[in-house]
């Protein structure tokens, strides 16, 4: 009796091992559709041929969450739905896009007449956006990330009246990289995606594109 039981056990063990092996094989050597792969994300920019058969999971990058501002509709859930409080989503400034405006749509409350840094003039609920005089008529705006709660109020103001240089981004020094991002689950526009950890930013205005060429198309300046 014990011998038979032992044999059955061994058999089952082998079976489970084989099943795990099959499962791993299926996820490691899975097929690719030519559009995306485990390098990920996009085969179009890849130097490998489309028929590349490198095991997918073996070469796969770690992924992190990031938000695509082009899809964002500014619902404010980034501020309220992160498992961290304050949120790991922060306003981030693409200085290269900023107009250094005196009347900054992201800094001042609508209707502000006298442009001073007085607290009652500031749009930011936590005074996280800082304004510094550079030279007439330019002002530099920076974000104090300790104070920023990622509500996106300034982002909306900057987008409506300015160049859209203020953008919401997941800051990966704060993000816990949850297996399932709580903001992503609640984002109404599915603006959150997993991106490769070595390219963690989806900011606009930092890359090679020249914003001016999109003139009048409501593109980058929108």
């Amino acid at each position: 009796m014990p011998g038979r039981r032992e044999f059955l056990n061994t058999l089952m063990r082998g079976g489970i091992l084989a099943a795990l092996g099959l499962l791993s094989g299926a996820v490691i050597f899975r097929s690719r559709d030519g559009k995306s792969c485990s390098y990920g994300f996009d085969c179009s920019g890849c130097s490998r041929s489309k028929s590349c058969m490198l095991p997918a999971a073996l070469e796969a990058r770690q992924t992190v969450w990031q938000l695509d501002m082009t899809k964002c509709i500014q619902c404010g859930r980034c501020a309220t739905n992160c498992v961290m409080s304050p949120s790991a989503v922060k306003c981030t400034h693409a200085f290269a896009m900023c107009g250094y405006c005196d009347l900054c749509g992201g800094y001042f409350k609508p209707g502000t007449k006298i442009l001073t840094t007085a607290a009652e003039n500031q749009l930011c609920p936590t005074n996280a956006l800082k304004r510094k005089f550079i030279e007439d008529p330019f002002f530099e705006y920076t974000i104090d990330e300790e104070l920023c709660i990622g509500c996106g109020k300034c982002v909306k103001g900057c987008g409506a009246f300015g160049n859209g240089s203020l953008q919401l981004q997941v800051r990966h020094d704060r993000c816990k990289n949850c297996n399932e991002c709580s903001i992503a689950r609640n984002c109404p526009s599915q603006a959150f995606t997993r991106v490769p950890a070595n390219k963690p930013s989806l900011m606009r205005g930092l890359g090679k594109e020249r914003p001016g060429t999109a003139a009048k198309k409501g593109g980058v300046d929108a």
Partner: protein
Amino acid sequence: MYIVRCTSFFLLFLLLPLVTLPIQRFPKPEFETNYTQPSTQIPVPRAELLAYLDVLVLLVALALVSWLVLKKRSRLWVFAMSVFSLAYFGFYREGCVCSIGSIQNVSLALFDHSFVLPLTVLLFFLLPLVFTLFFGRTFCAAVCPFGAIQDLVAFKPQSLGSRLNTVLGIIPYLYLGLAVLFAATGTDFIICRYDPFVGIFRFNASFGMFLFTGILLLSGVFIARPYCRFLCPYGVLLNWTSRFSRRHLTITPKECIQCRLCENSCPYDAIDFPVTDKSPESRPLMVKKMMMLTVLVPFLVLIFGYTGSRMQDTLAGVDYRVKLAKEVMALSKMQDAKAGSREPGAGSRKQVQDDSFEIKAYKASGKTESQVYSEASAVLKKFYLGGWLFGGFTGLVIAMLIAGRMLPVYRKDYVTNKGRCFSCARCTDYCPIKS
């Protein structure tokens, strides 16, 4: 090779924030003072190398705990290891990705080829299973931080009795089924969504989540390790692999002397008592039982499978694409009603929320109504099949449990239940026989 390449690359950037070069803006500012435009700082995520370090720690911890359980048979050392795991996988790693959650990543990767499954995540899924297959659930004993934290609060563990254990034991199967279903359809990662302990590890949780954790921990005072026993979906997989494990923790290192000292030592009801009442059931009765089972199993599978498929709408209702389609449909119906009847009073119908963020986002996305509907119906189709599979699986589980209770048992000694035992090694301390 690739891994080596990319990790060395990341070593270089380990602590340096990535600095992007400023580009020509529109239109370039002409500062006359010597102002230099700051560059936008983009913090680097946790280095990939560290993810491999986590796997290494997991591997070493599993090996060490297995050795402590099987060779050293020391509850104290196992406890020490569980504190370490709580500190490392819990408070340092802060939860993600864990073996329990990795079930979903693997499921989604099987069905969605664009989903990226890094090797580390796969290893987090595989390693505990493989170890369990050889040494029992040593992962649960002292590697999983969830178990460790629940072990700390089990002040007044009560025995629930075998019937209650069996009934409540169905829940993890349902949880596993739902988790795989929702992950495979790309709907949601519900294990992560209802992860009760990650908030503690991060010292940060919403009030609702905090309450949820509190209730679970409080129940854990009386029912030891309630998550592990009656919720954990990974526990189902471990339970079944552990049943066929090559070696397993034994209460006694030698022969059992029936001293009954260990009888109350297990807080998890995972010690099977001797069943010496040797009344071998009559052959005809056995045949009858077997025949009943051969009818019962397919019957239950079909009944539950059918019920599952009927629950298609409820299940799919969790999916965001289906939710959106419902909202869009309600909105267009409302608009039709408005356009159709111009008489006053027609507008008094309760307003559908046409300015919800979801609707706003849908309008901004430029998707057409039919696109939204076709996406949703594709999801619904998946849930039809998924409902059958989930229901069938549930039926099978219940049938198996019934069968388990129907079959005759003979046991001479006090032994650990290989499926349920967490290999925590508490019982070894109670056994008077020391190797």
